[in-house]
């Protein structure tokens, strides 16, 4: 059973930021929800409450960047780019301010429904010049996201996991690299964020079905090492399946498709994720099943690509992790 880490961001951010006077912690009324309440209480000189006023917060952060500070903005991802998109562009991205945008509740990790689920943020951020995009998929990546983000000479968009987070990896994020989780020769699986745990759940069943899976996990989505991806694609016989906690347009699936098209790769690609749809409110496991983002969906995608049915059922998949929606490790049920 995988190790579960409680509130990895809370301790990681405090360890990283405390005592660094140029790092400021910005919050927009979601302080405990973004696990920075302890930091607020213990390091008030580095904490700045900007209220439910994200447009001002983003331009304000741009001004702090101009003054040489490196603000870490904390709120739910959706609130950081949908309403204040103009401010994100003009005050942060264009002038390359060193603002670290810590976006919580990526994709369907929240039962909060459409208004709380950032399902198209990667697509948006990929199209913003000067933007770097990082995504966390486990506790170790959450623990290393602050240092990784702060190493960037410019703005950084981070998809951050909170609450109880599984530990899948034992090495920190190295910006620009990708994790190779298995080195098979039939199919390449590309996953990111919470999708990676799902893909790992499917691995033994796929192996038992006789498939050799090459699996890579992306924590750095922009900039992207296209050549390394192409090397992995050329190492597999049949094709590529992408799995992401995001719409398939503009996210990791698109990134892989663009890479393949640019290089003239003639292999098949199956893109799994939210298929041109909003999600609704529900538990993560329910949403991942309903919208086809889980281990079983990956199996279905691979069957589609191979044109075969391997007869894999839920019982064949590694035990699912069950999270209680109402948990002491989360500030609220969102």
């Amino acid at each position: 059973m995988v190790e579960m880490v409680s509130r990895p961001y809370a301790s990681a951010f405090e360890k990283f930021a405390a005592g660094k006077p140029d790092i400021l912690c910005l919050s927009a009324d979601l302080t405990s929800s973004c696990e920075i309440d302890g930091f607020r209480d213990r390091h008030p000189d580095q904490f700045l409450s900007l209220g439910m006023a994200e447009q001002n917060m983003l331009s304000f952060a741009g001004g702090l960047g101009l003054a040489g500070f490196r603000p870490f903005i904390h709120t739910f991802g959706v609130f950081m780019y949908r309403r204040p998109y103009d401010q994100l562009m003009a005050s942060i991205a264009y002038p390359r301010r060193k603002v670290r945008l810590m976006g919580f509740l990526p994709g369907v990790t929240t039962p909060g429904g459409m208004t709380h689920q950032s399902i198209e943020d990667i697509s948006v951020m990929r199209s913003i010049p000067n933007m770097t995009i990082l995504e966390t998929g486990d506790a170790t990546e959450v623990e290393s996201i602050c240092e990784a983000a702060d190493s960037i000479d410019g703005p950084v968009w981070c998809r951050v996991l909170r609450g109880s987070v599984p530990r899948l990896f034992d090495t920190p994020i190295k910006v620009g690299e990708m994790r190779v989780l298995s080195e098979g020769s039939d199919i390449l699986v590309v996953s990111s964020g919470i999708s990676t745990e799902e893909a790992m759940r499917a691995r033994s069943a796929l192996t038992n079905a006789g498939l050799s899976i090459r699996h890579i996990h992306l924590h750095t989505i922009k900039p992207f090492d296209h050549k390394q991806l192409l090397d992995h694609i050329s190492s597999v016989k049949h094709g590529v399946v992408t799995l992401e906690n995001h719409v398939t347009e503009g996210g990791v699936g698109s990134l892989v498709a663009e890479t393949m098209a640019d290089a003239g790769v003639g292999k098949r690609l199956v893109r799994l994720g939210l298929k041109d749809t909003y999600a609704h409110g529900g538990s993560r496991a329910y949403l991942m099943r309903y919208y086809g983002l889980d281990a079983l969906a990956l199996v279905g995608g691979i069957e589609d690509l191979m044109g075969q049915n391997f007869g894999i059922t839920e019982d064949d998949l590694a035990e699912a992790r069950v999270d209680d929606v109402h948990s002491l490790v989360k500030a609220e049920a969102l």
Partner: protein
Amino acid sequence: MQNERTTEDVALGIRRRVFEHTIRNNGGYLSQACSAAEQLAWLYNEELKLGAPTLPMIPKPFGGVPSPSNPDYHTGAGYNGPAAPEFDRLFIAPAHYALVAYATLIEVGRMAPEGLEMFNKDGSSVEMIGAEHSPGMEVHNGTLGIGLSTGAGLAYGRKLRGEPGRTWVFMSDGEVQEGQTWEAVQAARFHGIDNLCAIMDVNDQQCDGAMDSVMEVGDIRRKFIEFGAACVEIDGHDVGAMRDAVNEPHEGKPLIILARTSPYQTMPILEERFPRLHYVRFKSEDERARFNTSIAADLGVDPVDYAH
């Protein structure tokens, strides 16, 4: 380099340059020179503590946007001098006032007159909507309403660093229709950002016409005070009133000076164009000639010989 001329004389010089440019180019942001000339003249000639310019008097061509692959990139802030702790900073929040701001730089000896000839020319940094790489600009404010927030962030950061210099924002009254302006004021008050000052050109005009016909904004002085600013309302063509207004106590609060102005100040013929004053483009050669003669007389100069 300050106070070699009176601020009133600088304001007249600004209007003359914007007038000449508008007639010669058959259009321009002329009304903004009417309303804002004294404010920008006062800031640059008297109030702002600025160092000597660090960029060439004749602006360099466009040098590319901020990018990791553009290491030589810089903003146009060097026309206001270095960003040293003791100096003030200025943002021009309504970036379409750029023509008036450039004319001000020339009048106070911070840019060569040739700079204005590059206005809105392809490949020039002297852009029509002032970009952050345009002379005198430090941030990109073409989207109205973001200037005060950015100024508040910079001012807060400078306060944390113990810098004595203030952050000034030149604003336009249309910006009070944007919610972000009010978010900025409440945040500045909440965090005691009193090294932030703004002067707002309250000319009651916006792109569609008179503000009251587009969206009524009510008693904005009262609103600014309720949101937490110190706010004084003055005659925006009275330089003496500006000198008094800046002495308004505002400990723990930003100071906002509402400069009530006329969009036709010194150029009464402009009233013919009401309510479309945002950008004056002449509808006929006859109109252009009449405006040329009339405004030249108002400003005490010869009509512009624009045929050559």
